[in-house]
């Protein structure tokens, strides 16, 4: 191992430059650049099939990249896949533990895989069962548990070896809102102990909890930054229109080239107007025959809408 560069202490958990993956002619990930600081929760936000899972698989070394360089925890990924596996954890999108083993047996198996044995393993297992509230289910088969319990078990297994970097691929797609809240509390607990977390999601509220996020579409990164910075930098103004016959109004508004989108939210129509329009309130008011218009605070969903789809703004 003389040729390997000395690992310098770095502030970045993940650094990727020009990371690409082609499947035949299809480009799953296109020249992705990422710098994820240590100790943060970083989100991948995007619709299904946008390349979130593929990006995570590339960063964990499960898939080989077609192009680009990746550094994980200060070492280049290429050639260090095996040694990095001890320092990273991965929770798959689909439950990937054994349904016909009990919670205890699943944990014990994963523990042994990571080299835990004897008293050390016993203690760690007890700790995890308590931490993830699985003590009552210890003897239950994993296959017979609820979505939330399965998810806690999967997280317990992924963090059993206390990884420095944790990848979570759509971890909350199979759980109810109550469990999702609780799950995010656990992620912040992990983050507080210094773990860097990369999580993919298609829920706006989850994305908003991240320290920083990247919006992905068709394998391209459309925007990145902290949720607040993204909202501030949004190249559009949000105008809310109220009144009746909003469906017809929506039809007329969306055809206008200066309007990015119009979506009905309750009794309002939420309209995204390009920033270059000087007086958006007046502009919409004129277009909608003098209906009441109000400026609104942009949400992450608005950011998402402005930078994805046919009309996204560069």
């Amino acid at each position: 191992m003389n040729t390997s560069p000395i690992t310098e202490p770095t502030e970045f958990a993940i650094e990727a430059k020009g990371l690409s993956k082609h499947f035949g002619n299809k480009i799953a990930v296109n020249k992705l650049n990422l710098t994820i600081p240590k100790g943060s929760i970083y989100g991948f936000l995007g619709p299904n099939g946008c390349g979130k899972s593929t990006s995570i698989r590339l960063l964990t070394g499960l898939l080989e990249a077609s192009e680009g360089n990746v550094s994980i925890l200060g070492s280049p990924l290429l050639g260090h896949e095996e040694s990095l596996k001890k320092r990273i954890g991965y929770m798959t999108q689909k439950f990937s533990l054994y349904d016909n083993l009990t919670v205890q047996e699943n944990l014990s198996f994963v523990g042994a895989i990571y080299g835990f044995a004897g008293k050390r393993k016993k203690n760690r297992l007890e700790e995890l069962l308590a931490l993830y509230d699985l003590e009552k289910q210890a003897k239950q088969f994993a296959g017979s548990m609820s979505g939330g319990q399965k998810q806690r078990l999967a997280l317990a297994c992924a963090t059993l070896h206390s990884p420095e970097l944790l990848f979570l691929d759509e971890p909350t797609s199979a759980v109810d809102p109550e469990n999702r809240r609780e799950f995010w509390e656990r992620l912040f607990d992990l983050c507080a102990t210094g773990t860097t977390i990369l999580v993919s999601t298609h829920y706006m509220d989850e994305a908003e909890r991240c320290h920083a996020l990247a919006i992905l579409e068709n394998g391209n990164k459309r925007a990145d930054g902290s949720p607040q910075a993204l909202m501030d930098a949004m190249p559009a103004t949000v105008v809310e229109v109220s009144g009746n016959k909003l469906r017809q109004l929506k039809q007329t508004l969306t055809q206008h080239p200066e309007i990015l989108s119009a979506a009905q939210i309750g009794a309002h129509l939420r309209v995204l107007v390009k920033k270059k329009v000087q007086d958006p309130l007046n502009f919409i008011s004129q277009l909608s025959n003098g209906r009441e218009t109000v400026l609104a605070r942009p949400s992450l969903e608005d950011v998402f809408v402005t930078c994805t789809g046919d009309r996204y703004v560069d």
Partner: protein
Amino acid sequence: MWIRVYAIFIKELKQLSRDRMTFGMIIMIPLVQLMLFGYAINTDARHINVGLVDLSQTSESRAVEQALVATQSVDFIARYRSIKEAEVAITKGEIRAVLYLPADMTRRLFNHPLYDNKQADSALTLPIGQWIVDGSDTVITSTIRTLRNMPLNEVANHTVTRSSPSFEVVQYFNPEQRTVVNIVPGLVAVILTMTMILFTSSAIVRESEQGNMEFLITTPVRSIELMIGKIAPYVLVGLLQVAIILSVGQWLFSVPIKGSFLSLLGSSILFIFASLTLGLVLSTIAKTQLQSMQMTIFILLPSILLSGFMFPYDAMPVAAQWIAEALPVTHFMRMIRAIALRDASLLLLGKDALWLGLFTVGGIVIASLRFKKTLG
């Protein structure tokens, strides 16, 4: 390394013991197949359904019929007035053969050189009757052919001075000529081929199909550890099946086990390893459990038909013998029969043992090269 192999081994055993269907099959496959084949397969055909066209209608013709029935080779289930009718019955499949006794059968019988000392000129000899056989089934045909020279002394009321045979045949190891003696050890080989290849080929594929592999490959598990851990439990399964077949075979069919326990164990382990690595190689090719099943059947059929289990190896053409030689089961078929029936030692069967060993090493090398710890 061994802690991880052990963890996978224990996990696999637990999963196996909880999968009732699979666990049941491990025990039931050998038991049911042993009963089935032990009772059903018999290469000496008996009680073949045949018909009779008796134009002679004499006491002698009835005596000939009685003598044939007494051999138990044939059962006369129908009588026909003409050969035409009998031929139709053969075509329909009602009977497999017909015996034609001509009107002058009695004269032919008493003029036959075997039963008439004065009639020495064989040129005048006429056959007493004729068998018309459905020749498409060679086993039936050869059984009927053995009736060609059946002595009819009692019918002809004549004691024959028969010439002594050129050769004397002494039957070692299976003096009663029971088919089951050869079948039971062969069944060990066939059942092991089936279960060992099937279990391992689907074991690894199952992990990827159910999504477990995606998690496993992000852990420090190495592919060789995964493979050893996954196939080790099936070595025990294989040995259990060998024990079931041989002990039930001895108990139900009195098939002797003459060889030493060590030779039996050694050859079984060698074969189990060879089959397991074959299954592993298949599992690196298959993407789904259905595919691995199809490939197992692809291997299983030649294993049954070419290995010498059903048809003698020596009767096959050279090309087929080469294919048979490549299959591990052919070597084990020879070894297990030699050890169980002829008390051969493992050392005496060095060539076959060596092939199984080489096959295993080659299989492991190919499987580890093909098995990549990446997706897609």
